[in-house]
Structure formats: structure tokens, C-alpha cells
């Protein structure tokens, strides 16, 4: 950009000079304007570049001095790996014991075509798996197939060791598996999952979506120790009396929590389809059937608990009312008789103690069909059981409620109930009259569970006395455990086979609770088709089968549950648990 000489303002221009004919010499010609434009553009371009360099420099300063502001964007490749969440969270019992867990388990397979030295591979693998069948593996690796399993479900350590061996052609297949460390102990209540980790039964099914969404383990109300004891005793009853099945429930009467739930025969949730060594003859459908929540049975005399509770609650009978049980009732082609009849008028407590069918039928008649129905509905005995499991059966009862039905239902025949709803309703009878739905989830200690009042506290108190009498003097004396003030009611029903009651196919059950001076826990136990033995003098009734078993269960679990033993002969307890009309009198033993 050399400045052009301005000739026109030269005071002494050379003579030979002729102004050139071109434009730039003109002071305001188009050439000058073009030059000016070019200059402006150059300045503009320079400014843009200066700005760009300033931006680059500023950015460099920013990165260097204020690194934190931009670090997030620049070091994404240093992201810390987060542990992959298990597909399903663990299930733990009320004390935090692991009932079900998901383990990612690698399985080792090989592509034999890629294995170069099969002999060396076998030798190396044998160092990781000591119990390996070398010959079989060598054969597999030289088979020329494209896929052979070497070992399923390795531990992480074994996986690392195999990786360290560096054998070509070996691959891992990772899959998450549900593991149930307790095996068949919780088969029905915890349930199991299928191949794609979908819940198929029990809690796994009922809480399927919860288990998939949660991050914390799901805590159940169950207790491993109680479950084990209950299962052992139920299994013992089944074995001793060559029964086809059985089950039991332990419940907290004040919260509705299920502490243990057993149904036998059962299965191993780790391998559901595998036959059970203890019950080789039981079919899969029988083993997978939860008798406690899905099955419905005529529970027999246990039902008298509800008949008497409704009679006392609505005023149809009082503790001193008498009902004549001296003669069998003949109605139509039916005859209602007593198993061990007393053949005399009985008071309400006596009807209950001696389990008189005639008496209970008459009490039911005094209550009447409408009130009976209304009360049973209120007790939750005419609808599906209220329990947070998917395996819920439904009760079966006659559609038209004739007097004969009123009477038979009064002592537990002609109506079938699932054991879980019997246990739930019986809890309401003794806990002061509040019905709470059964749950398998832990209720935090101290939390009050809302419920529905179904009978008055006074009636509940009378029921406790009646239940205590049955264990003290009645049909359930074998359930007595010193110190724990047990109460309960037995039931023995004949099973219906092809529409007729089968004389020798019994279903014996028992509902027991302790301690009756302050009821906390309820045990329901049931055995299906027991057969009398020499030790039981040929009897297969509840009093000889499930009642002693319940006694054994209580003796074992009461110390675990922290129930304080009391002296049941102490006057305070005797006074509180004996009906007023019977205080101080000699009570005839069943």
C-alpha cells in the first residue's frame, strides 16, 4: 500500500509529465472508491481473525485456568463404571436372612473348532475344576461341533481363573439366576421364577414388578426359624400318620403378619421340576399346589369358633345358655350326631369344649340364616382370602341357604374355606375383634395396622376363654405347653369323595393361639387324609394328629419369639380365662 504521489499539488511538476490517462489519478474516481472498499474489507477480515484468535486464546485460558467448568464434557471417557443392578432385588426374612437372591453366573462353553490343543486345554481346565471328567471333556473338545458346554454356573473366581488360562475357543455366557439358599423350605410362600426371571409363584409372582423396580431388598414377615420348625412338624405329622399332605400357618394376631407358611408336599424352587425325594409319589401339580392359600377345605369343628362368636356377639346365646344335645338331629335324609356325645343339655362353653355338632347346629339355628351369612361375610369367610399372594382360592358354599345348611355350616360342614382365611378370621376372634388382612410383608415394630372391627372386644374376650377351655379340658389337651397358656379349637372333617362324605378320608386341623392371657401368635395346622396308628390308638382325628404337633411347635417357637412364660395356675390367669359360670366348679374332662 504505497501512497501514490499526488502530482497535481506538486508546486513544480516536470515539464514532460503528462498525467496518465488511467483512473487512479482522479481524486474521486471509481478506482479510488474500489481501493477504499478493498481496504475496508481487509480491516474487517483482520478484525474477524483477531476475534477468532481471541476466542481460541480465551478458550485455552478457560480450559487451563478454570478446568473444573469444562471437565465434565472433556473426560466422559473416564466415567466410573456403575455396578449393574440385579434384575430382581433380594428377598429377606424378618431378621434379614437371605431367602432369594440373584447371582450373575457365567457358564463356560467352547467352540471346539477353535480349540487348538485340546489335550492342553483339558489339562489346564482340570487345575480350575478339580472334579472335572477329563476323558469326557477331551471327547467334547475334539468332537468338531461348534458349541459344547464345559461347565455351567461358575463362581466369579473360577471365571477369572479360566480367563487367566487364556485358552482360545473358550467363551462365557452370562445369565442371572435366582438362587434360593433355603431350598424347599419356602417353596410355596416365596415361590420361584422362570427362565426369563419372571415370578411364577408366591412372593416372586405377587411382587414381581416391585422386585424388578426396587433397589433395596424386599423384607418379608416370615422367619426362617419358625418356618423350619413348622415345616419339620408338619412333615412329621404327615410321615407319622401316612397322610397325603398337610400344611401350617403361623400368624401374628395383632398385625396379620404371616410368620411361617408351609404346604406339603412341596418342591425345590432352585429346580422346580425335579422330583422330590421326600414325596416320590406326589405329582408336580400336587407339589406346586399351595394348600394354605389356594386350596379350600371343609375345616370341620374349627368353624364352631365363628358360630359361637357370632351367637355371643349378636346375643343369640350367652355363656350360660343351654342347648339340648341329648338327641341326634334328623332333618330330611341327614342325621347330625356327636362324635363323643354327652347326651344331655350342654352350656355354650360345653358345646365348644366337647365339640358338640348338635349343640353347634342349634346355636347356628338360634343365630339364623341371615345373621349367619352377614357375620360370615364380615369375617371375610364368603369371599376370596385377603392376602397379598396371587395363589388365592375361594370359599365354596351353597347358593341357597336352607336351615340344613345353617346347621351344617354351624359346625363347619357344607362350606369350604381356604386355611389362610380361617386363620385370619380366627385371629380377629381372639385379638379383640379386629380383622386385619394377612400379609407376607414385615410390619415395622410398633406400627399399628389398621383393621375392621367384626366382633365386640367383650365377645373376643369370651372367645379366648372358650378356646382356653378346649385345651385345658376339651379335645385339644395335647396342645398344652406349660407356661404358654395355649388355647385352640380342633376340627376333623370327612372329605367329600364323589359327592359323599368318605368315612375314612379325614381332614384334621387345629387352630391354636398363645398366650391366651395376651394373645400374640396363632398357629393353624392341617393334615390331609391321616391314618390312625398304634400310638394314636387308631385315631386320626385332630386331637391325636395336629394337636400334639401344634403343642410341639409352640414349645419350640415360644422361646424364640420372646414370649414370657407364666404360671398358668396362677389365680389371676385362671380367673381371667375361665368363664364366670364355671369358676370354682369341677369341669368334666372330654
Amino acid at each position, binding site marked *: 500500500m504505497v501512497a501514490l504521489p499526488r502530482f497535481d499539488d506538486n508546486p513544480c511538476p516536470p515539464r514532460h509529465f503528462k498525467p496518465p490517462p488511467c483512473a487512479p489519478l482522479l481524486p474521486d474516481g471509481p478506482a479510488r472508491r474500489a481501493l477504499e472498499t478493498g481496504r475496508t474489507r481487509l480491516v474487517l477480515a483482520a478484525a474477524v481473525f483477531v476475534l477468532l484468535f481471541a476466542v481460541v486464546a480465551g478458550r485455552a485460558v478457560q480450559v*487451563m485456568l478454570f478446568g473444573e467448568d469444562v471437565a465434565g464434557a472433556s*473426560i466422559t471417557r*473416564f466415567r*466410573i*463404571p456403575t*455396578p449393574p443392578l440385579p434384575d430382581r432385588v433380594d428377598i429377606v426374612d424378618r431378621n434379614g*436372612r*437371605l431367602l432369594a*437372591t440373584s*447371582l*450373575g453366573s457365567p457358564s463356560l462353553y467352547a467352540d471346539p473348532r477353535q480349540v487348538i490343543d485340546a489335550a492342553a486345554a483339558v489339562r489346564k481346565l482340570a487345575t480350575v475344576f478339580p472334579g472335572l471328567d477329563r476323558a469326557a471333556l477331551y471327547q467334547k473338545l475334539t468332537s468338531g461341533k461348534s458349541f459344547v458346554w464345559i461347565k455351567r454356573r461358575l*463362581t*466369579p*473366581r473360577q471365571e*477369572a481363573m479360566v480367563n487367566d488360562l487364556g485358552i482360545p475357543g473358550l467363551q462365557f455366557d452370562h445369565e442371572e439366576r435366582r*438362587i434360593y*439358599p*433355603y*431350598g424347599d*423350605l419356602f417353596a410355596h410362600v416365596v415361590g420361584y421364577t422362570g427362565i426369563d426371571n419372571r415370578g411364577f409363584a408366591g412372593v416372586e409372582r405377587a411382587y414381581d414388578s416391585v422386585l424388578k423396580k426396587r433397589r433395596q431388598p424386599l423384607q418379608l414377615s416370615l422367619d*426362617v*426359624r419358625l418356618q*423350619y420348625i413348622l415345616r419339620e412338624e408338619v412333615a412329621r405329622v404327615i410321615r407319622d400318620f401316612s397322610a397325603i399332605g398337610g400344611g401350617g400357618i403361623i400368624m401374628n394376631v395383632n398385625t396379620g403378619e404371616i410368620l411361617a407358611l408351609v404346604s406339603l408336599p412341596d418342591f425345590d424352587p432352585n429346580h422346580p421340576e425335579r422330583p422330590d425325594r421326600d414325596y416320590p409319589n406326589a405329582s408336580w401339580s400336587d407339589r406346586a399346589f399351595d394348600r394354605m392359600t389356594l386350596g379350600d377345605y371343609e375345616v370341620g369343628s374349627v368353624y364352631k369358633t365363628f358360630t359361637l362368636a357370632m351367637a355371643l356377639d349378636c346375643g343369640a346365646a350367652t355363656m350360660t345358655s343351654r342347648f339340648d344335645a341329648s338327641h341326634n338331629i334328623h332333618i330330611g335324609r341327614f342325621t347330625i350326631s356327636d362324635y363323643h356325645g354327652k347326651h344331655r343339655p350342654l352350656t355354650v362353653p360345653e358345646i365348644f369344649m366337647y365339640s358338640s355338632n348338635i349343640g353347634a347346629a342349634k346355636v347356628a339355628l338360634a343365630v339364623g340364616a341371615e345373621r349367619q351369612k352377614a357375620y360370615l361375610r364380615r369375617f371375610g369367610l364368603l369371599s376370596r382370602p385377603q392376602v397379598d399372594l396371587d395363589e388365592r382360592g375361594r370359599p365354596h358354599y351353597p347358593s341357597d341357604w336352607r336351615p340344613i345348611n345353617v346347621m351344617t355350616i354351624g359346625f363347619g360342614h357344607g362350606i369350604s374355606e381356604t386355611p389362610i382365611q380361617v386363620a385370619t378370621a380366627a385371629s380377629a376372634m381372639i385379638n379383640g375383634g379386629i380383622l386385619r388382612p394377612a400379609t407376607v410383608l414385615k410390619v415395622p415394630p410398633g406400627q399399628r395396622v389398621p383393621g375392621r372391627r367384626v366382633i365386640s372386644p367383650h365377645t373376643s374376650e369370651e372367645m379366648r376363654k372358650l378356646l382356653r377351655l378346649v385345651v385345658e379340658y376339651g379335645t385339644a389337651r395335647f396342645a398344652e*405347653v*406349660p*407356661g*404358654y397358656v395355649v388355647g385352640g379349637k380342633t376340627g376333623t372333617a370327612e372329605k367329600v369323595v364323589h359327592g359323599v362324605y368318605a368315612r375314612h378320608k379325614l381332614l384334621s386341623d387345629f387352630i391354636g393361639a398363645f398366650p391366651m392371657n395376651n394373645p400374640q401368635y396363632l398357629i393353624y395346622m392341617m393334615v390331609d387324609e391321616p391314618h390312625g396308628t398304634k400310638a394314636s390308638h387308631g385315631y386320626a382325628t385332630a386331637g391325636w394328629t395336629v394337636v400334639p404337633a401344634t403343642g410341639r411347635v409352640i*414349645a*419350640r417357637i*415360644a*422361646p424364640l419369639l420372646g414370649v*414370657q*412364660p407364666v404360671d398358668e395356675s396362677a389365680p389371676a390367669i385362671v380367673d381371667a380365662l375361665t368363664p364366670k359360670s364355671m369358676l370354682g366348679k369341677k369341669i368334666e374332662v372330654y
Partner: protein
Amino acid sequence: MLRLSTLFWILLVSAAAAGMYAVKYRVQGLEHALIATEKATIAEQHEIRVLDAEWTYLNRPESLAQMNARFLSLVPITAKELRTSVADIPMRPASTTAPKGAPMTLAAAAPSPRLRIVPAALEKRAAGQTDPAAAAGASPAPPVAGRDHGAGRAAAGYRARTAAAPLSHAPRRGRSLDDLIARIVTSR
């Protein structure tokens, strides 16, 4: 033509650049170490899950029951064996070795050095030191000490109790805890 200030700035810039490279590479190295640690942590967590399951499996009630039958023969506690209130616990009779004037509870609780041996060995064992040699070294006195029934703290208390107020029931069927401890300690 290099002026002194130019030289200074060139040196400064190269020093800064070298420093930054060094720091960057160290940070990168640390980050790799961090990732490795995180991965190891996850692996450990997986292992813990596996071990949890295994521990639960080994502690199944039926296997505990079998081990109880083999080694302990403990039986369920009955209501008669429970003392539920302080008033039910009889005082220690005056005829025992407790020094006069000393509070009885303290005398009962203070362990004699000889008695301490067995629990110490057991504690070590519980803490995971299963080396038999170490266990043997920790208990120089003959293991019979544990079997020394009359001197055992719990046993003494139990005896004192039974002596003061004879219980209304037959003696327990299960062996006493001291016998068991002695048996476990001497079985190696």
C-alpha cells in the same frame, strides 16, 4: 536475534508445557487406577453376593440341626428353665470362695486368669485365626482347664443357683456349655 526476555518467555512456556504434560499423564494414570479399583470393587461386591448366598446355604436350619446332633446335642429350652424376672434369680450363697465384703455380683463376674484362657482361645478362633498352632500357643495351660467344671464361671453360678433354690424339675438333658467348650477346644 534472541533477546533475553524472549529467551525467558520461551523457557517459561516450554516449562509450563512440560509440567502440564506431566500432570495430565499422572491424572490419566490415576484415573485408570480408579477405574481398575472400581471394577475390582464391583467384582468384590459380586463375590460378596455369592458368599452371602453360600453362607446362608451353609447356615440352613437343617444343617445346623445336623451339626447340633453331632457336636452339641442342645435341646430346646423349656418354660421351666427360664427365669423371667430378677426376683427369680437366687443370690449366691455366702459359703463360696467370694472374699468377704466384696459385692457378690462382682466376685462372680471377675474372671480368674486361669479361666480366661479358654474364652481367649475361642475368641481368636472366632476371629478367623484357625491356625491350630496359634490356638495351641494361645492356650499354654492344658485345655482341661475348660473342663474344670466347678471353677467355670457360668457353672459356678448355675451350681450356686441350684444349691440356693433347688429347681423343681429334673436336670437338663443337654450337656452344659462348659463341657461343650472344653470338648471343642480339645478336639484338635
